């Protein structure tokens, strides 16, 4: 069993040695990813709801935010915030920087997706609800959003997975997530086994998320006319 391939990627003693470190990275990745998912989706939904009020000035700001945060590479944002804020006297731990930046990026994408969902609900739904005396907000809450959210589930799931994978960017600012642990171990050991362990950890972590997303899609599909 001295195949050069196994030596390079699956060296047993390294697996044993770095397993705890990678596991710690998994824990940190899960923490950041969950925090990002929660704040990012909620903030995106909040922005889409605010946009539904169609206050011109506010909507321009929301569109500017959504467009720029969707356009910028997340890595640029991470570095900008991490190295920029201390010059303003704001010192945030790298964990917080990663969380805030990724949340904003996810929020920007989610805002657009939720807004598209809200727009796709036929005008007749609004009119029917308003004609029974429901207020704008009640119509949004009970008639429009429940339908818009269902439409948004598949694209939101995809985007959420894409953004949360960016937790790996934390490695450049020293967040001890999976990739950070793996690269550190790689440089100590001079062997790619820890990186392979990291890759496997990502698969183990994100495949269930993909499956959960698929479950949500079927769960929230309803019989349409």
């Amino acid at each position, binding site marked *: 069993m001295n195949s050069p391939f196994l030596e390079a990627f699956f060296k047993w003693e390294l697996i044993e040695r770095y397993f705890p470190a990678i596991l710690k990275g998994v824990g940190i990745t899960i923490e950041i990813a969950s925090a990002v998912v929660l704040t990012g989706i909620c903030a995106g939904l909040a922005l889409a709801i605010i946009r539904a009020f169609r206050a011109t000035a506010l909507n321009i700001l929301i569109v500017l935010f959504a467009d720029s945060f969707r356009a910028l590479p997340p890595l640029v944002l991470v570095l900008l915030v991490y190295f920029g804020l201390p010059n303003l006297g704001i010192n945030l731990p790298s964990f917080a920087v990663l969380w805030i930046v990724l949340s904003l990026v996810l929020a920007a994408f989610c805002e657009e997706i939720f807004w598209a969902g809200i727009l796709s609900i*036929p005008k*007749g*739904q609004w*009119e*029917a*609800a*308003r*004609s*029974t*005396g*429901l*207020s704008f907000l*009640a119509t949004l809450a*009970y*008639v429009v959003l*429940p*339908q818009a959210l*269902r439409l948004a589930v598949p694209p939101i799931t995809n985007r959420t997975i894409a953004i949360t994978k960016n937790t790996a960017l934390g490695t450049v600012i020293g967040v001890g997530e999976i990739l950070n642990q793996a690269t550190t171990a790689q440089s100590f050991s001079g062997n790619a086994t820890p990186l392979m362990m990291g890759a496997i950890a990502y698969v183990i972590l994100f495949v269930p998320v993909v499956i959960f997303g698929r479950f949500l899609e079927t769960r929230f599909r*309803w*019989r*349409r*006319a």
Partner: protein
Amino acid sequence: MEAVSTTPILELRGLRKSFHHTEVLRGIDLAVAPQELVFIIGPSGSGKSTLLRCCNRLEEPTDGSIRVDGVDIMARSTDINAMRRRMGMVFQSFNLYPHMTALGNVSLALLKVLRRPRKEAERIALAALDRVGLSEKARAYPAELSGGQQQRVAIARALALEPKLMLFDEPTSALDPELVGSVLNVMRDLKRGGMTMLVVSHEMRFARDAADRVIFLDHGAIVEEGPPEQIFTQPEKTRTRAFIAELAR
């Protein structure tokens, strides 16, 4: 007593509506008495639907006054949401909420607008569904119902709020011919029950035997009005005559 009973349920005065620079309604005066069924006919683009949609301000009138049950609904102090409850509206495309059952559709406003407890709301909703002959479909989703059934659920949704006035905007135009009858029967029942109704429709036979008054609208103005037999058989105006002739073809 006499004076009270003749106060119109709906009174439009000088109603105007423009979209950009196109005037769709050019000063409509119309009063609908309690229990009256007023039927509006006219060529497409004549402003029939806009007229109806101005009555509950789904469409904001450009000018004129609208009184519903004596209340000026254009007044700033008027709670438009409260007034809309007194007017049921039925749409050509049903507009049922697809994510809710028939019961859910009918009880939503009872729960969220009138804040009735769930049990009571469902009891009222079931009674409304029963009025349109669909109590056994209470748990069905709109997609599981035929067009005619969907439109009857939509009627029940409006009825559940005990409106003073029902507005029908081409309620049978989107239905297959064999399903039209069931909806018209429900409307006949409502008329017999004393409901005040303003109906935009092309169902001339229904107009003939159920309407109290027919209004012919063209280019945003009332051209002629009268009892159905007069409008359909001896219209005075040339335009009315031409339109009726066109329908009879």
